[in-house]
């Protein structure tokens, strides 16, 4: 019986071969597709975890800022700030500070050390152009 089922000629036809190749390619494509989808899912999962982490980080940062705001709004802190302001102990505004390069300061110090009268604060008018020796605070005009 088994002998009857055996293919006698053993001939390999083109259509048979093509069918096998197509089946093989479909199987490979399916495998690749599954692998690709799985990889994509894993990647998305990683992204979700990453986003979760960032969300938590931002949440924590928010809480930290809230905490700082609450601390700044605390009556004792406000009173301390008011007391400082009453003593006019304020940080100078940016326009009140004239910034000079360090090298210029060093050069000027050397140049002016000989002829500057002792105990006087150098001002722009006293110094040569570009040789300011010290940041100058401009007193703001009193508010009427």
């Amino acid at each position: 019986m088994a002998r009857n089922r055996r293919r006698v000629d053993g001939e390999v036809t083109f259509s048979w071969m093509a069918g096998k190749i197509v089946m093989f390619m479909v199987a490979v494509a399916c495998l690749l597709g599954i692998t690709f989808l799985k990889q994509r899912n894993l990647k998305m999962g990683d992204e979700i975890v990453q986003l979760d982490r960032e969300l938590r980080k931002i949440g924590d940062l928010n809480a930290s800022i809230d905490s700082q705001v609450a601390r700044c709004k605390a009556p004792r802190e406000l009173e301390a700030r008011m007391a400082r302001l009453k003593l006019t102990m304020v940080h100078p505004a940016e326009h009140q500070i004239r910034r000079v390069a360090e090298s210029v300061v060093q050069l000027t110090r050397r140049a002016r050390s000989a002829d500057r009268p002792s105990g006087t604060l150098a001002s722009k008018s006293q110094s040569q152009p570009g040789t300011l020796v010290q940041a100058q605070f401009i007193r703001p005009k009193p508010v009427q």
Partner: protein
Amino acid sequence: MFPTSAHRIRILVVGSFLLAGLVALAGRLYVLHVFRHDEYATVASRMHDRKVTLPATRGVILDAKSNVLAHSISVRTIAVDPQFIREEAEKKLKAKQKTLISDLVQILSEGLLLPKSEIMDRLKQPSRYVVLKKKVSDETARKMQDALAQKRIRGVIFEDEQMRFYPNGSLMSHVLGYVNAGHTGVDGVEYMMQADLRGQDGWRKIECDSRGREIVVFRNEDFPARNGYNVLLSLDQAIQNIVEQELDKAVQKIRPDSAVIIVMRPSTGEILALANRPTYDPNAASKKVDTLRNRAISDLVEPGSTFKIVTIASALDQRIIDLQDTFWCENGRFLYEGRYITDHHPAGTLDVTGILVHSSNVGSVKIALMLGSQKMYQAMARFGFGQRAWGDKEGERWLGEIRGIVRPLRSWSKLSLSRLAMGYEVGVTPLQMVTAMSALANGGNLMRPMIVKRVQQQDGTVVREFFPEVRRRVVDQKAARDITKALTQVVSKEGTAAKAAIPGYHIAGKTGTAHIAVNGQYSKDQYISSFCGYFPAEEPEVCIYVMFNRPRGKEYFGGAIAAPLFKSVGERVASYLHLRPTVPIPPTPEGRNQLVSMEGGT
């Protein structure tokens, strides 16, 4: 070509072996899948499946103006695995990389501000878990994590934690309470509102890979956490700050053992401020036990003369006396049941107002005798003495609040009525006293003290709202009006509380100076000095109770030490609340209106 018999035998043998192998394999599979399924499923589940808790954030406590009083921030506990680090160091040593330990110590020392020697000592410990520092800020922890990752150092454990933070420090500490290490409220509002503040932890069932990382695609159940509700209080941090500043000044001067001040809105029973001295900072890791007690609800005191308001208001309510009725005050020395009752300001004949103005013990005892024991007892019960002001119901109680002592009528002695009339033989809490005074201020309704106004979600949606609650009527409106009229005379030049007067307002109040019982006898040099008053007397907005326990110094009368504090607090609170003055304000030497200048305008 057909197989020979030898081939057939070989095939049979090989086939038999294969079959036997397959049968054995099937058998093993059967055993694993059927008999030992549960055991291996558990092992696999333990290795890959995890249930992660998603912790809920504890709710925020806010004041009446929605300023943050307590909130939770994320912090880290930094620990190390010394054994793992030593193994890693040995591996690196073999690879001629000697810097692991020194790099690690450098990073930890800079981040945690700990001496290098201390870190080295801890790294030598024979343990797999050694805590280096707790409550490290998130930012610092992240910087350290980055630095460690850059140097590829492992073995440092960063554990997430929540920390309760009170931005105002000790301000309002006795009201807010604090939380324990498990983030559970153990006192004050933190304890009382624990169920609302706590929130509900969520969970997530996850699967992990061989390296312990979550495989998100296999994320199973995901139940997000519900954060705790925010609790909005009736207290105002600005008023509280005024109260605490003034209290600190007074305490520095008077140096009492303890002091209490309560500010209440009489019409609603809302507590606007409550302060105790000594106090504590809830942010501090360790707190002195003695400072933790909220004396406003847990200290039992004999109130002294402030209690006369109960005697006289009840007699007025029962129509036993009228404000114009006069009493012979025995020139300050009255023999009753074999004991003398004396007055500090001896007087002859006084009307009811005069009895309050001069704080006459003799006069108030005579009124109490007219009232009788039964009615006096009932009056005390009506005013809420001997009961918790906050409430007796389980779950509604303020932790640590006591009932006070009102002895049952059957155990009264012959002298009890005379003692009660002037505020002895009764134990009250400051909260009970201010609640009783508020009842007179609002026309006779005893209000339930109110601290929490609202429970709301984080977006402001109201979950629960609390409304003012009238517990009972204690006196009728006429009696309340009459006693207010009499009490305004107490804060006059002739009265005992002249120092409580606030320009621009009629003040009603009563002083109290009670001897403290020490070893069964009343001490001659230890006192409870108090003042309880409200203003504007015509339409009271604020009721303030001030109490000093064992003041030191020459002055010890309530009118001398408690009344000035009432005034200084009252003035600033009136300015803050923009209370309309009810009497013309006397001009100052500069010719300017005092109240207007207080408000900062010209």
